[in-house]
C-alpha cells in the first residue's frame, strides 16, 4: 500500500488538481441551473457554519408557546420571525441549528455509503465470478426490503444516535452505489491500460484503485450529489419517525413530526422545516444537473 499512495498523489500534481477544481467550478457558471443549486447549497453551508451567530435564540430555550410568525417576544423585545412551536421554542433558531445536523450527518452518511458501495462494486465488477454473484445477491436482498423497514430494524436495534443514522443509511444506500460502480467497472476493466497494468504484474487492489476507480469518477460525482439530496430527505424521514437524533436536539424531520398534529391550526410549525429540507435537497439536485450539463458540453 505504501507505494500505492505515492502513485495516486504524486507531489507535483497537487497544485494542478486544485486548479482544475477551481476551473470546473468556474465552468459551472455557464449553467444557470447549476448556479442556483450551488447558491442554495452554499447558503445552507454558511448558515450551518455560523449558526451560533445567526440564531437569535437558544434553540432549546422556551420563550412562549404557539407564537405565530412575526410575534414580538415581550421579554427579550425581539421579533419571532418564524414563530415558536408547541413548547415555545424559536423555530428560526431551531431551523438554523438543525441545518448543522443535516449538513454533518448527510455528507458523512453519503461518504460512508460510498466507501462501502465503491469497494463492493470494484470487487464485484473486477473479479466477477463468485465475488460478483455473492455481492450482487447481497445487494439484491437488501434492495428488495422496503427502506423504511430497514431503517426501523437498524435504528431500533442499535438505538437512535448520529452514528446509527450513518450506519442505517450506509446499509440502505451502499447496494445502489455498488450497482453503479459495478457497471462502470465492467466497462473500464476491458480498457487497454488495465491490461497493461495486469501484464506488468500489478496487484488487483492497485488495478482497482489506481487504474479503474479514478476513471469512473465523473458519473460518481454527479451521482453523489443526487444521492446527498436523497440522504437529506432520509435523515428528515428518520427524524419524522422519531428515529433521528434524540428529542431536544433541533432536527428538521423531528420538527415536522412535532408540528404535524397541529398543522391545521399552526401550519408554520411544519411548513418552515419542510421549506428548509426542500430547498437544500433542491440545491443538491440542481447542482448535480448543472455538473452533468457542464461535463457533457465540449
Amino acid at each position, binding site marked *: 500500500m505504501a507505494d500505492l499512495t505515492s502513485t495516486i498523489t504524486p507531489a507535483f500534481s497537487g497544485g494542478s488538481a486544485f486548479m482544475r477544481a477551481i476551473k470546473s467550478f468556474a465552468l459551472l457558471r*455557464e449553467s444557470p441551473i447549476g448556479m442556483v443549486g450551488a447558491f442554495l447549497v452554499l447558503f445552507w453551508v454558511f448558515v450551518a457554519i455560523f449558526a451560533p451567530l445567526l440564531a437569535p435564540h437558544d434553540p432549546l430555550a422556551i420563550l412562549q408557546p404557539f407564537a405565530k410568525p412575526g410575534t414580538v417576544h415581550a421579554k427579550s423585545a425581539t421579533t419571532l420571525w418564524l414563530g415558536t412551536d408547541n413548547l415555545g421554542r424559536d423555530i428560526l433558531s431551531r431551523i438554523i441549528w438543525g441545518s448543522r445536523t443535516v449538513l454533518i450527518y448527510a455528507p458523512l452518511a453519503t461518504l460512508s455509503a460510498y466507501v462501502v458501495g465503491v469497494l463492493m462494486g470494484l470487487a464485484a465488477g473486477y473479479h466477477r465470478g463468485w465475488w460478483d454473484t455473492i455481492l450482487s445477491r447481497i445487494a439484491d436482498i437488501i434492495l428488495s426490503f422496503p427502506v423504511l423497514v430497514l431503517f426501523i430494524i437498524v435504528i431500533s436495534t442499535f438505538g437512535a444516535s448520529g452514528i446509527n443514522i450513518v450506519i442505517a443509511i450506509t446499509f440502505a444506500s451502499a447496494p445502489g452505489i455498488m450497482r453503479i460502480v459495478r457497471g462502470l467497472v465492467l466497462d473500464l476493466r476491458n480498457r487497454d*491500460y488495465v491490461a497493461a497494468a495486469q501484464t506488468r504484474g500489478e496487484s488487483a487492489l492497485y488495478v482497482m484503485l489506481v487504474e479503474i476507480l479514478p476513471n469512473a469518477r465523473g458519473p460518481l460525482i454527479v451521482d453523489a450529489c443526487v444521492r446527498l439530496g436523497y440522504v437529506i430527505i432520509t435523515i428528515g424521514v428518520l427524524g419524522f419517525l422519531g428515529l433521528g437524533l434524540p428529542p431536544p436536539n433541533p432536527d428538521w424531520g423531528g420538527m415536522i413530526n412535532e408540528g404535524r398534529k397541529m398543522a391545521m391550526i399552526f401550519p408554520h410549525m411544519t411548513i418552515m422545516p419542510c421549506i428548509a429540507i426542500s430547498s437544500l435537497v433542491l440545491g443538491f439536485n440542481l447542482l448535480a444537473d448543472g455538473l452533468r450539463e457542464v461535463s457533457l458540453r465540449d
Partner: protein
Amino acid sequence: MGEHSDIYDGPVLEIDGLCISYFVRSGEIPAVVDFSLTLAPGESVGLVGESGCGKSTVAMAIMRYMGNNGDIVGGTVKFKGRDMADMSDEELRNLRGSEIAMIYQEPMAALNPSLTIGTQLMEVPMVHENVSTEDAYKLALQMLNDVHLPDPERVMEAYPHQISGGQQQRVVIAMALLGKPALLLLDEPTTALDVTVEAGIVELIAELSRKFNTSLLYISHNLGLMLEVCDRIGVMYSGEVVESGHIDSIFSWPKHPYTHGLFGCIPLPHADKLARPLVAIEGQLPLPHERPNGCNFGPRCNFFEKGVCDADQVHMEGVISDDDPAHYVRCLRWNDIDHDEAIPTGPEQPPVELGDYVLEVNNMQKYYEVHDTSLSALVSGGNIKHVKANEELNFKAREGETVAIVGESGCGKSTFAKVLMGLENATDGEVMFDGVDIGDLAVKDRSPQQLGSLQMVFQNPNDTLNPSLTVGSQIARVIRKFGVESDPKKIRQRVLELLDIVKLPREFEWRKPRQLSGGQKQRVGIARAFAGNPKTVIADEPISALDVSVAAAVTELLMNIQRENKTTLLFISHDLSAVRYLADRVVVMYLGQIMERGTTDEVFSPPYHPYTEALLSAVPIADPQVVKRRIVLEGNLPSAMNPPKGCPFSTRCQRHLGDICENEIPKVQFNADRHAIACHIPMQELRDVAPVISLKEPPPPVQPQPGAAAE
C-alpha cells in the same frame, strides 16, 4: 419523386464555396472552408483526408444536418439545381432517406437493435412512397436479393445482432437504396469491416451505383480504396480541399506537397522497410482554431516560402500541365516544385542481424469452455462446449526479427497475444520464451524480469493510457515495477530518456493523456512497452487506429527502437500492406489455425495458400501501377464454436477441391525450409498459381532488394 429525377438532367449536386463552422464554448471554429464540388449523375467522387480534416462535416452539411452547434456560414449547396437553403424542414425531411441517403461507418449503430431488419427496411418505402405493407415487403425482399444476401426471407425476420457485420452493412446499403436515391453519401462504409468483407462491399456498391445510376460521394481515409471506387477525388487537409482531380492525375501526377506527403506515408507492395523506409509528414494537423495564416499546410511543408505561403488565403488553381481539366491544386508554389523528386523517401537501412531463437511456439492450443446453461443442454449432458481460439500453433522467432501475425477479426491472433502475456493459460502445447515454458505461467507467477522482457503495445491510442495519471508517472511506474531502477532520480532520468527515444518533448512528462494526440499517446505506449528493456514486444494492431501520416511515423519509430535494441517484434495486424512493409516473417491465421507461414517474400508470392491469395487480392493498394487479380470471397467467417470439420477455410475457399476439404484437416506442406502451407491442394499446383499483385511496368526509382528482407 422518381419522375422529377427523369426531367432534371443537370448535375445532381453542386456545392460552391461552402463554409461550415461549429460554435463552441471558445467561439467559432471553422470546420470546412471554401469547399466546391459538382457531382454528375452516376459519377463517384471521393473525399480523402485524415481525421479532423472536415470530410464528414461536408457530408452532414449536404444532408443539412448540422447538430445544434454547427452552421453553414457561407456558400451554397444545390441539389438537382435547387438551393437547399431555400427548402423547408418538411422538404428536407422528404429528401433525406429518399433522394439523398447516407451510409455510416458502424453498421450496428445504424440499425435499430430492437426491430427486425424487415420492419426497418419496409419503413423506407412506406414512409417515402406510401406503399402498402405487402408491396413494401416485396420491395425490401427484392433489395436484399440485390445486395446479395443469402436467404433474404430469413434475414427479413432477423434482428440486427443475429447477422454478421458484413451482412449488416449490406442491409444498411439496401436500406439506403430502397429510397432510390439520386445521391448516396458513404462515410467510411468499410472501415469497420475485415478486408475480405470490405472487398465484397466495395464491389457491391460499384455494381449497384451502375444499376441504379446513383451518384456516390465516398468519404474515406484509405487512398487505396479510393483508387478502386472513385472517378474523381478531393484531398482534404485541415478543412480545405488542397487538391482535386481525376483519380489518375492525382495518383500519377500529384501536385500538392500534402498529397506527396501522403503517398510517402503509405507502404506500397514494391517497397520494404530497408530499401524505402516510410517518411512521415513532420508536425501535426493544426487545431481548427489555431490554423496558420495563408496555406494551412505551410508549417509542415518542405517547400514553404516565407512571405508567399503565409501571406493570404490560398485559392484553388487549375493545373494546366496535364490534360485533366478537373485537376486543381491549392498551392502557390506547385509550379516551382520538382514533382519527380517531391515524394519523400527515407535513407536506406542495413538489414538487422538476427540472433538466436527467442520464442518457440510448439503445438500451442487455447480452448475456451462455454457453459450452455439451457435445460436441454443440461439434460443431454452436453453443457460444455469448446471454442477453439487457437489450434496447433507452431512457429519460431529470432532475436531482432519482426514476425507478423496476420488475420481477420476472430482468427485468434489476440487470444495468442493474451496467452503470451500470461493473461490466459494455454490449454495444451508449449510456448518457450527464453528457455522457459510460459504457456501456462499466469502473469502473477512470472518474475519481474520475465514480465519486463515481454511487453505489449496496444491498439487503441485512446485506451492505452490511464486518463487520470500523468505520462511521466505511468512510465515511471513500469520502470519501478520491473526493477530497472529504484532511485527516484534515476527513474526520472530514465523516463526523460524514454521520452527522447520516442521523440516526444520532455515536458510531456507532466501532461495528462487527454492533452496528447492519438499518435503521441501511441508513442507513450511504445515508451512504456520498452521501459523494461524487453526482449520481445507484441504490438497488437498498433497503427490501425491512427491516421496515415501518423501511422507512418509510429511505424518508423517502432522499427528504429526495435533495430537498436535488437528486440523481437510480434506484429499483429490485419493490414497486409503494413505487414509486407515491415515484417521479416509472416504467419497467416484463419479461425485459430495457421494457414501459411514463411518469410515475407515467400508468403507474398506463389505458392500461396488460397486464403493468403484472397487476402492479398482484397487489400486496396494506392498505386495505379499495380494490377490485381480480383478474388472476392463468398460467405462469412464460420463460428469458432462450430468450426468446419476439415479445413477451416473450406466454407469460403475459391479453390475448393471437394469433400476432402470439408472432411479432412489438411496436412502441412513445406515449400521451403520454413515456408509451410496447410492445404490439400498439391504443392506443385499451388506453385503454378499466377501472382495476385503484378506491376504494369517496372516501378520507377526503387526496386526491392531481393533477399534483403529474408533471414
